[in-house]
């Protein structure tokens, strides 16, 4: 099998179609996607497939097309850009996968072609960096993870300003106020500029196996201490049956491990940076958080240290773990028809800290400590784009109320817009079943009340993908530090403080 670009794309497309038509199982789908080098992508697309209903197309679960008035508007404003091509590269997050499927609804009335390049997350970053470095304009729209927003802030057009500047291209009723305020603050804003439009919001919630907790007489935990006790009790009672208390995404050197770590230290009253912009992961609270994580690792499947979010989801879906504090986007897949644990997982508010959360005044670089770690992303309009206006039209369409709601309906993942949460079609799917939205109430509460955000600073993309997860990996797998959390974090502190100082950010 050749994995040249074209072959890879057709392979992925064929695999996705086979999965959508239920010709192959989810396991086969994930394996094939893994073979094609699509990591998290496959996991997300796996969730999407769960929206399929027999006898209907994959898109038909949304039961709608782009509304007539929007199509008419697209036709009118898109005419001057007919024949142009909009390109954007993204990880295969659920909304991206849906957009890729329904992009013809935009292309047909406007004549603007849309090319969505789906690659693993680290490649999205590399491509975006190269593009902005050379100001090439290869990509008209950037998919920006929340940890990169500050890095790319100078390279994007502020969508709110552009909306006002170009009234002839402004989509009627686009309504920026409909985006959840915490999401705008945590994801899209940097130095009071909208770097892009919120597009995706995976967020940490707590999920538990109702049957196992009932069997062992454990109350669903509400705090870190209760969670720890429950995890230990489950491991002790069920390990012989192949079930562990919890599962982690602790792959050394991967961003997923960094996400787990931040959630752990925030939950123990710690922070990443202090108000003086020095690294604080090595203070007392930070060390307590890391020690807690080391304890959790002892109660998780050994494969956890080789697993990213994909692996963690598979642990949950295959019934290997019973209590997890992680991404809400796992949930629809847990209720899928081919899930071994369909209907057995329950969502709940993220466990709260026993010692309190560090105040935003005590942390640096715009960090927001809390228990609802978010891993959202935005769509940014490249200021180097050669098709800026055509790209802007696509971006408005992709982020419009109707399209975003349809994305949620199809995959069951959390919407960006308040109106989508309230949409009766979304509420109607809050039952056990494929593409369920029964976790969204918890998600909305988490976003509105306890959402946490990583620092906004230009070096963060590097720290969160390299220094922090690599050194944590050395600690957790026993390669270095002899299990001493403090020693590990002191080393991370020296690496980060030096880099911050060298960059003139102190």
């Amino acid at each position, binding site marked *: 099998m050749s994995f040249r670009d074209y072959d890879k794309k057709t392979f992925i497309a064929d695999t996705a179609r086979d999965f959508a038509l239920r010709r192959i199982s989810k396991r086969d789908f994930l394996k094939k996607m893994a073979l094609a080098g699509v990591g998290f992508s496959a996991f997300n697309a796996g969730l999407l497939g769960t929206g399929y209903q027999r006898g209907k197309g994959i898109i038909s679960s949304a039961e709608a097309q782009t509304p007539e008035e929007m199509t008419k508007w697209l036709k009118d404003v898109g005419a001057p850009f007919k024949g142009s091509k909009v390109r954007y590269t993204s990880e295969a997050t659920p909304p991206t996968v849906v957009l890729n499927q329904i992009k013809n609804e935009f292309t047909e009335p406007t004549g603007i072609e849309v090319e969505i390049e789906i690659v693993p997350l680290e490649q999205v970053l590399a491509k975006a960096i190269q593009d902005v470095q050379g100001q090439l304009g290869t990509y008209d729209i950037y998919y920006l993870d929340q940890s990169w927003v500050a*890095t790319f802030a100078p390279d994007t057009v502020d969508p709110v300003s552009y909306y006002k500047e170009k009234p002839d291209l402004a989509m009627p009723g686009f309504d920026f106020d409909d985006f959840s305020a915490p999401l705008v603050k945590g994801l899209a804003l940097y130095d009071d500029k909208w770097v892009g439009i919120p597009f995706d919001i995976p967020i940490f919630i707590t999920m538990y196996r109702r049957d196992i907790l009932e069997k062992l007489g454990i109350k669903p935990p509400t705090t870190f201490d209760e969670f720890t006790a429950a995890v230990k009790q489950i491991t002790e009672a069920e390990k012989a049956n192949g079930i562990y208390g919890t599962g982690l995404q602790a792959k*050394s*050197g991967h961003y997923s491990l960094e996400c787990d770590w931040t959630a752990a230290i925030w939950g123990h009253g710690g922070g990443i940076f202090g108000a003086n912009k020095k690294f604080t992961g090595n203070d007392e609270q930070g060390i307590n958080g890391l020690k807690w994580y080391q304890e959790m690792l002892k109660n998780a499947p050994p494969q956890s*240290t*080789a697993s990213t979010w994909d692996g963690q989801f598979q642990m949950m879906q295959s019934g290997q773990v019973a209590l997890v504090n992680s991404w809400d986007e796992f949930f629809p897949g847990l209720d899928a028809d081919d899930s071994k644990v369909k209907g057995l997982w329950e969502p709940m508010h993220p466990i709260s800290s026993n010692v309190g959360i560090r105040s935003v005044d005590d942390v640096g670089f715009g960090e927001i400590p809390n228990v609802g770690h978010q891993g959202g992303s935005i769509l940014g309009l490249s200021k180097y784009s050669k098709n800026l206006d055509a790209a802007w039209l696509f971006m408005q369409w992709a982020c419009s109320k109707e399209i975003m709601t349809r994305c949620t309906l199809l995959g069951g993942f959390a919407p960006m817009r308040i109106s989508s949460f309230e949409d009766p079609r979304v509420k109607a799917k809050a039952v056990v079943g494929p593409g369920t939205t029964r976790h969204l109430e918890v998600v909305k509460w988490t976003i509105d009340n306890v959402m946490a955000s990583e620092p906004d600073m230009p*070096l963060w993309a590097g720290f969160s993908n*390299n220094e922090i997860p690599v*050194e944590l990996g*050395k600690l957790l797998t026993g390669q270095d530090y002899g299990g001493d959390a403090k020693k590990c974090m002191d080393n991370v502190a020296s690496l980060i403080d030096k880099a911050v100082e060298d960059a003139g950010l102190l």
Partner: protein
Amino acid sequence: MTAAVYDAPAPGRAWLPRWFTSEHPLPWLLPATALMVVFGIYPALYAIWLSLHKRNPVLRKDVWNPSANWLKALADERVWNALYNTFLYTGLALVIQLSLGLAIALLLDTDRRGYGLLRALMTLPLVVPPAVTAMMFLLMLDGSFGVLSRSLYALGLLSPQYPILATSSTALGGVLLADIWQWTPFMVLIMLAGLRSLPKEPFEAAAIDGASATQAFFRLTLPMMSKVIAIAVLIRGIDLFRIFDYVKVMTDSGPGTATETLTSYAGRIYFNGDFPYASTISVITLAVVIIVSTIFMKAFRVRL
């Protein structure tokens, strides 16, 4: 008359300067030289140029500072760790692949019926793209459902508590498995070619003198194969030194930095946007390959 015929310019190319005709070596060298300049020399020079700059991550500008990256590399523990891992990986892979390759080649070096097919089948792993091989082994070594891991557990060689790719002491071995599976056939092919080109007479004379198979192997086969072995080691060694695919797909340099090689470290830095420092590590890799290859070629008197 004859002289006049030889001196006359070829019909239709009288206007070409001599250095542009087929009699001159230049036109023959030009395409290869152009390719080498565009795809080899220019990128190498550009990498060296880039390594003399320091990245300002905030302004995203590369500032001229010739010593910054080189001093940083010298003080960077991860560079030394990566260099160690690269040598270890290359050394282990070479020893295993060479031993297995020679052993299999000796077994296949016969004209008996069916052995031609076996020799052809040996080439199959070579046509699989390394990234796909890595993905196959990643799945086979998965701690939960991987068939290889389960077999190793069953044999008592590994414990499920320590998945091979997630444990720092075994991860490099896991990556090596994929490399050995894919590239041992390459060694087999070279060794077979060498064995088949050996003269028969010394072996016949040794047989008449009563030499055993072992004696013939150590006294005749190995010495006569030494040049072939040296060239195989050189080619494979250079290739192994720039190992990237297997590491990237199977462990992404982890756990920690247990499988981080020079190229995978450079790749990680590159993906994070520090192009000058990534170039510095690439240039270091190139320099080490050139130095080690030159020493090897001198020591074993290899002439390419």
